[in-house]
């Protein structure tokens, strides 16, 4: 009696409802020959019935699974002898309940079961049994009820399509709001800690300070606590690494996209594109090793041979490899939109005597611009958010430098190291991670607003 079985049964009922609803609609119209008298296609009556059968039942099931455990535990707890719960903290009660559950499910328990425990476990087992039965009954009843309701409401004048479509629209709106909720969640989960951080460290120091050294600032006996939380080097580091990455990814990605969609034979394109896409899925650890052990030494050697002073960890190495990683964001997304530009646009250009590259540069790319910008923005975002490669190849030193051969660190790297390193409760160091996150969020938001306006301005909408 697994709940996935129930889910499958509900899905089965939905298909049954679909079938019945459809049939009922046809019958109510007066037979297959008269379906044109129906308000909507029979399919929509079917879908209507299926949705009525499915949605309430599945909602109930979701709620039930979410709350069943809590209710059962409350029931079992209520019947435990008071002596067992006496003086126990809620956590300890939870542990006791856990033990009872283990006992009930036959798993290994931590101690010899007392009769009370055994009784509670039996009760728990019984209640769960009942609960499962009740859920099955409830869910199935709701499914069948929904089906019957839809059945009763089915008549030729019912606006089935409109109803089904409005349900779909509601679903779409819910889907869209998930993005908003996520944003809200992120802002909330970083905001409070950030505010606390700014109570300890002046925002001025944070935004304009040029020295980043969170660890030392932590110690109570730190000499110059001021200035140790200057985020400027992190932002310049982020800027530098992302810029290098984009300098690699945008030309390579865009030119690949152009070549694959406009020049390459179809066969080449059909395997080259997915092959490039593999680059996006290689774990960043792998890129990190590649950057640190292959690219960085190479750059160092090269630099040395030219008499340059190259750090063994350099922004350049990390940026280059990161650029490789995000190539597919630019190449694949751009390729799709370039491919979608109507042939008539190209024809118009060719007929005026434009060469292929002129056509691409002046007609195709501008027409595909919103999509290309979308891909590039994604790539930038990915570059800003990447950590592993930077940690492994660019080092962690917060240098304020414009030299790509120096080692730098980025905002996200610092967030990760601050959050996963040896953190301590409520120290400014840990909270700095949140402040950094919030700042990054605001900065990228501003960048995106600008990008949106640029796209709006230069958008060329074909017919």
């Amino acid at each position, binding site marked *: 009696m697994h709940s996935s079985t129930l889910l499958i049964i509900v899905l089965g009922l939905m298909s049954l409802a679909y079938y019945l609803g459809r049939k009922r609609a046809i019958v109510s119209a007066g037979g297959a020959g008269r379906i044109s008298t129906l308000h909507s296609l029979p399919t929509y009556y079917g879908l209507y019935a299926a949705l009525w059968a499915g949605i309430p039942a599945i909602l109930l099931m979701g709620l039930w699974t979410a709350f069943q455990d809590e209710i059962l535990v409350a029931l079992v707890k209520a019947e435990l002898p008071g002596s067992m719960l006496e003086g126990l903290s809620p956590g300890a009660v939870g542990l006791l309940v856990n033990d009872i559950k283990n006992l009930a499910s036959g798993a*290994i328990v931590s101690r010899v079961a007392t009769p009370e425990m055994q009784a509670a476990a039996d009760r728990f087992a019984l209640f769960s049994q009942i609960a499962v039965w009740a859920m099955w009954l409830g869910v199935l009843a709701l499914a069948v009820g929904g089906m019957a309701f839809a059945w009763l409401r089915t008549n030729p004048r019912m606006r089935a399509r409109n109803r089904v479509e409005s349900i779909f629209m509601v679903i779409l709106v819910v889907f869209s709001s998930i993005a908003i909720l996520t944003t809200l969640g992120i802002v909330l989960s970083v905001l409070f800690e950030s505010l606390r951080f700014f109570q300890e460290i002046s925002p001025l120091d944070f935004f304009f300070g040029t020295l980043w050294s969170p660890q030392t600032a932590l110690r109570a*006996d730190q000499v110059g606590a001021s200035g140790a939380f200057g985020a400027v080097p992190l932002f310049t580091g982020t800027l530098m690494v992302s810029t290098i990455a984009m300098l690699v990814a945008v030309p390579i990605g865009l030119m690949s996209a152009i070549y694959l969609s406009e020049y390459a034979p179809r066969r080449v394109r059909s395997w080259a594109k997915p092959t490039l896409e593999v680059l996006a899925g290689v774990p960043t650890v792998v890129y990190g090793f590649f950057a640190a052990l292959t690219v960085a030494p190479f750059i160092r050697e090269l630099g040395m041979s030219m008499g340059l002073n190259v*750090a063994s960890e350099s922004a350049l190495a990390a940026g280059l490899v990161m650029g490789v990683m995000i190539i597919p964001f630019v190449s694949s997304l751009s390729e799709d939109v370039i491919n979608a530009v109507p042939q008539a646009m190209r024809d118009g250009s060719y007929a005026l005597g434009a060469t292929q590259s002129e056509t691409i540069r002046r007609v195709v790319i501008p027409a595909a611009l919103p999509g290309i910008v979308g891909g590039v923005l994604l790539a930038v975002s990915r570059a800003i958010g990447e950590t592993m490669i930077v940690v492994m190849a660019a080092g962690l*030193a917060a240098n304020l430098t414009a030299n790509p051969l120096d080692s730098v660190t980025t905002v996200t790297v610092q967030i990760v*190291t601050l959050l996963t*390193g*040896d*953190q301590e409760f409520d120290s400014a160091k840990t909270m700095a991670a949140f402040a950094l996150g919030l700042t990054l969020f605001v900065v990228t938001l501003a960048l995106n607003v600008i990008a949106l306006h640029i796209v709006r301005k230069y958008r060329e909408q074909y017919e």
Partner: protein
Amino acid sequence: RDSIWIAGSSTVFPFSTAVAETFGRESSFPTPKVESLGTGGGFKLFCSGVGVDKSDISNASRAIKKSEFEQCQANGVTEITEVKIGYDGIAIANAKSGPALDMSLGELWLALAKDVPNEDGKLVANPYKKWNEINKDLPDVAIEVLGPPPTSGTRDAFVELAMEGGCDSFDSVKALKDSDKDMHKAVCHGIREDGAFIEAGENDNLIVQKLIANPNAVGIFGFSFLDQNTDTLQGAKIAGVDPTFETIGDGSYPVSRSIYFYVKNAHVGTIPGIQEYVAEFTNDKAWGPEGYLADKGLIALPDEMRASVAEQAQALKPMAAPAK
């Protein structure tokens, strides 16, 4: 939940998992889940309270701090058993193809400190660019040290053991200890930021690989990685002492730290197997000098100490509040 949940230090992770695996294989209990969160992250979770959704055991590459202990108390985690499991040596090593190093802690400090005393004992920004500028016997190569980032426990330990040990060998600095304690600490703990010391992330294998690629670089990382790479790496001698199991175990190699795990006593008896796990860990078959943990690079405690820790651990004797 019917299995033990262990979380904490990444340094203790290899040992803890080895025990967990053996425990799972050889007992009737399920294999514990071990999470690598870092020492601080482990304590954060551990001290957030008692309950099924809180960890049972916390691994740590340092002793619990007072603030953490208090947090634990505040959240109802009152009885904690501290189990010191052995030592983790911190190796200072470079590639075999590079020059062999033998230096004192003082010289190491001079190489890495942010500010060093000049001839007349005044503090100046670290002027040393090459090892042999510190001591003529040291090699004529640029100082380039790859070490853990400030957020890592290894860095903390290195600073406290090596740097602080080194700086006190200079009288002028030592004198500060009494006159200006804060100053003393800042001087001893400050690591140079002019590029000679490179923060290289927490992946010790990466440091090993970087050392092999760059024979002039010196790395700071866990001893077990040196143990596994004796064919390509050489450990630097500190004051003539090679890093080996023996020298670390008997304390003659100075840069090593104790590692621990902490048991939440409130969970014993409600989560099955905790006691048995502790017993497995504190068994000579595991943590003894010849035990399987030694193969993984753990340096065992001296015999008597092991015996007494094992006794207290198995009795789940709650620890007292730490001093700091």
